[in-house]
């Protein structure tokens, strides 16, 4: 009996030590991961003297005016509006066209469907660099350079292979009985799509909306290539130009980047649930 107790005690000590080790590692690593955020936030509120003192964490005085200075120096509000226009227009296009295509691949039977589905999946392997220059040539030919069109219009043609795939998987889980009942009542495919599939797929559509909002907001290479005039820049491009011009004023630089991060962070905290689900679904594909 005492032997048993001793063994039990030893085991619980070992378990407590294991717990302690897990927590220590997690706390140290999460500190390391969040330092860039916290430190840039702190730097964005410092004055010019303190911003060159990395050991100062709490800015004194707290210079909220740094944020205003960003607007004095660059048309950051314009970048914001531009990003919002491009992002939301892309979002609409991606959702509509991905849903239509996914419905076709999931629920309609047509010649060559399965073959084209494989073709579609294999295009995910193609590096965007391969089509980059032809796209530039095409949009240049159409006179779309320095407009938002090259950033928006492609979203309406397919809406991203990954999004189509995600929605197709979701549509496949919706019971066929619902669709059959509607068809017996004389519903066309389009009504089945609009009145049965889309309402039921709202969670999946929300997931895609969140993922593509973030992807579009962070998109850098395309606006960099297609937009030339300053006033048309999106936030991502604007901030990189700001970095070059204002690297001697790091506190303004940090204030600008903090502001550029805010929309994505807000979306993240509002829609965390959908985002995590999207990522998990990605993993399911494996």
């Amino acid at each position, binding site marked *: 009996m005492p032997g048993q107790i001793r063994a039990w005690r030893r085991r619980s000590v070992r378990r407590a030590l294991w*717990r302690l080790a*897990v927590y220590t590692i*997690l706390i140290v*690593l*999460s500190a390391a*991961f*969040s330092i860039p*955020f916290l430190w*840039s936030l702190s730097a964005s509120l410092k004055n010019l003297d303190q911003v*060159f003192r*990395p*050991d100062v964490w709490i800015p004194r005085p707290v210079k909220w005016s740094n944020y205003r200075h960003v607007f004095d120096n660059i048309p950051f509000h314009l970048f914001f509006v531009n990003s919002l226009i491009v992002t939301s227009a892309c979002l609409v296009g991606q959702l509509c*066209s991905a849903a*239509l295509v996914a419905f*076709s691949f999931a629920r*309609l*039977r*047509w010649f060559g*469907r399965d073959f*084209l589905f494989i*073709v579609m999946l294999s*295009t995910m*392997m*193609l*590096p965007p*660099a*391969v*089509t*980059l*220059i*032809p796209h*530039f*040539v095409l949009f240049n030919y159409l006179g779309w350079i320095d407009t938002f069109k090259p950033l928006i219009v*492609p979203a*309406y*043609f*397919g*809406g991203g292979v990954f999004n189509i795939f995600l929605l197709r998987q979701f549509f496949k889980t919706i019971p066929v009985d619902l669709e059959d009942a509607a068809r017996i009542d004389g519903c066309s*495919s389009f009504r089945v799509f609009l009145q049965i599939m889309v309402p039921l797929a709202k969670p999946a559509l929300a997931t895609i909306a969140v993922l593509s909002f973030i992807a579009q907001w*962070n998109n*850098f290479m395309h606006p960099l*290539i297609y937009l030339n005039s300053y006033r048309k820049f999106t936030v*991502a*491009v604007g901030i*990189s130009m700001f*970095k*070059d011009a204002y690297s001697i004023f790091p506190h303004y*630089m*940090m204030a*600008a*980047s903090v502001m*550029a*991060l805010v929309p*994505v962070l807000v979306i*993240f905290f509002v829609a*965390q649930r959908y985002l995590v689900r999207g990522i*998990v679904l990605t*993993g*399911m594909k*494996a």
Partner: protein
Amino acid sequence: MRTKRSRRARRAAFRRNVEGYLFASPWIVGFLVLTLGAMLFSLFLSFTKWDAHTPLDEITLVGTANYKEMFLEDELFYKALYNTAYYSFFSVPLRVTVALLLAVLLNQKVRGIAFFRTIFYLPSIVVGAATAVVWSWVFNPSYGVLNLALHEVNVLLDTIHLGFINLPEPAWLESELWSKPALIIMSVWGLGSSMLIYLAGLQSVPGHLYEVADLDGASPVRKFWNITVPMITPTIFFNLVISVIGAFQVFTQVYVITPNHMGGPNNSTLVYVLYLYRKAFDELRMGYACALAWVLFAVILVFTLLIIRSSALWVYYEGERR
């Protein structure tokens, strides 16, 4: 009667086909123009010399000259290839293993898992221009927080008489030797989505395996190597493929973080896509850039196929007889 029915059936089939293609048409049109058409055009351009301004009918065909120049004369091409390989060779294994480690730790039924998960995941969704700006300041050799931390550690080591262990306090992005490690550190910071995919994979490992191991008195390390790792090899495989494809195409962070966007110092951060960008949009050598793109495609394809081929050796799919 028979022919009539079959005609009706045929007509129904025809209507079904039309409907199917109609619904899929956004993607089909996009595929034909923006993917297939673009690929063919890019392949064609890779055999030409073109500055994007002269009309297309005056384009100069040069045969395989672009490819020849790339492989035989262009030192920067090899440099870019080397930089990208260096970056991928360290970034991919680090991301894949650290993300797995984090996921396993978070899977330990710890309190506050949602909090930790958010902390580790958040960087991956904000990776881009704005965070590259933040990191450029983190890496600042004199005023950055990273070297401050390294310095503090060195002071600490000194006071406890371990001064012979001296951590370097490098110039990071301003140093030819340390600029690539800086990029790798940034990429590890953005491993959140891999970690989340692992977490999903871990949750699908059947719990009874661990219970049996507990009865046999297996240690946590033992359980990790003999149960967890084999059971989630499909997830490791998936993350590996995704990370390799992503690492070979790194662009935004490098473009934003390096001075003048040229991939300095001394081209030490000139990664492949950045080189392609420079050729296309700084030097206006569209044909050459297209040739570069196709070589990149080939490289990525070879590596992906190698990983897929090797997967038969180390990926375990449950329910699959061997």
